[in-house]
């Protein structure tokens, strides 16, 4: 398998909302290529007609009563935010529109 190019690494980083240094791009590119190369051995396993396991227990649609129960207050919910309008119980982010 061919090594990951710097452009590949940059594309993945952008999808993951990561900004890598030049050194990280080179290092991760090589390390990820090594790992993916190693993972290629899975291709030798015959999986024709084998269903995928996303989860080991076949539980689906677990339901509970739709009953009221205590939850966090808005103030508690925003207490850890790096920039919150705590009194209003709101998160604050940089301006998105009309900046």
């Amino acid at each position, binding site marked *: 398998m061919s090594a990951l190019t710097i452009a590949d690494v940059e594309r993945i980083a952008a999808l993951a909302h990561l900004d890598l240094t030049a050194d990280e791009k080179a290092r991760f590119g090589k390390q*990820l290529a090594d790992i993916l190369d190693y993972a290629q051995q899975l291709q030798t396993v015959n999986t024709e007609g084998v269903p995928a396991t996303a989860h080991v227990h076949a539980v689906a649609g677990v339901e509970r009563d739709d009953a009221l129960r205590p939850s966090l207050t808005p103030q508690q919910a925003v207490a850890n935010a790096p920039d919150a309008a705590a009194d209003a119980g709101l998160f604050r982010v940089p301006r998105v529109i009309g900046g």
Partner: protein
Amino acid sequence: MADLSPASARTIRNDVAARKVSAVEMCRDALARIQASNPRLNSFLLVDVEDALARARKVDERLAAGEAPGALAGVPIAIKDNLCVRGMKTTAASKILATYVPPYDATVIERLEAAGAVIVGKTNCDEFAMGSSNENSAFGPVRNPWALSRTPGGSSGGSAAAVAAAQVPLALGSDTGGSIRQPASFCGVVGLKPTYGRVSRYGLLAFASSLDQIGPFARSVDDAALALGVIAGPDRADATSSREPVPDLTAALTGDVKGLRVGVPRTFVSEGVDDGVKAAFDAALAVLESAGARLVDVELPHAPYGVPAYYLVCTAEASSNLARYDGVKYGYRSKAAADGLQAMYTHSRSEGFGAEVKRRIMLGTYVLSAGYYDAFYLKAQQVRTLLRRDYDRAFDAADVIAMPTSPIPPFGLGEKTDDPLQMYLADIFTVSANLAGVPAISVPCGFVERGGDRLPIGFQLAGRPFDEPTLLRAADAYERLTRWPTVAPPS
């Protein structure tokens, strides 16, 4: 050899229940032990003396008021720092969560406290539980109490070291691909990964949701069973927690393994295993056999594919789970926030995450991306199915399955940090239990000498889903016949 063992969790509980000692006294004892050895071990990231004593005082008050003593009354316990404790800083050993104070308790914490356990602090780990050596902590590695130049294993290295150094009799960790069992093996203590779904994950900072499971560290199988009995059981806050009833795990420890079928995947365990580990493993099998267990050959044909399947599945899930760390709701926000929302997301994550976490997010993002999904992620999930079927078949012939926990003894700090793939390969014997969802335990099975250090080795047993009673019975029977020391001598 001199008995270095401090009291077990069960002894402490019984003494506190009988009012022979108080929870506060036991808490002070643990705090003193932590204070004495933490500077060299770095096993705890947070110890709040006043908070711990207040928690202990509450237990004593409940007993004084006539409340029936809980199963862990007055037992000091350490909590891996990826488990939320209300009001107690919980960082996942990451810079991105360095100031996070959870507004709620994980379900396991509620259950521990209801049973009278006293939380004394938060233990160090690999960042977001990603690693096998504890070297990925943003707050420095933990040192192995048996050999300070070596890793305690990971990711729950702090919890394992805390129990091995007798700072506490019990600790909780989490195990996604071996993160309880491998450090238990490296530190010479007992580490139990329950069946997937046995313990609620509510309040565990998610790494790979289909694999993560919380479990105990202890210095005996009996104490591990005691702790699991407290934290196990269905929880409305975790839809993946199982409604299977929790049996009496202590009653299961009969010491009797006559006729028990111990499956040994000979082909799988024959390659790439350190000679000392292999010898300790073979000796452990012989002990069980001498007690009347029957060794049977089993095959796990897809187990050799466990590492690649695991690292594709867990990183895919991690890339999704860790998308929530974006500088908005909690944790670190970059100064670059002034450059707009996208810059805030990207810079907060890039400055807040360490190298291994970035690497795994990148790998997971790649295997989920268009054009690679079928070849990598879907393929890994199909192999996961085949591996589960291997276990199902093996459990037709055997009641438990034995393997070494780690193919190698504890290695030196810094020895593998430059080569992530080499680090991953050492997870070969632990990842398959997570992929298959079966319970597994590591118990001490002896020591090897390496470079002048006396290093613990772990013996791993896996059981049928939700058959912790048989698994614990086998592990306990082995322990009764061997009694390896589980407390590292003070260095």
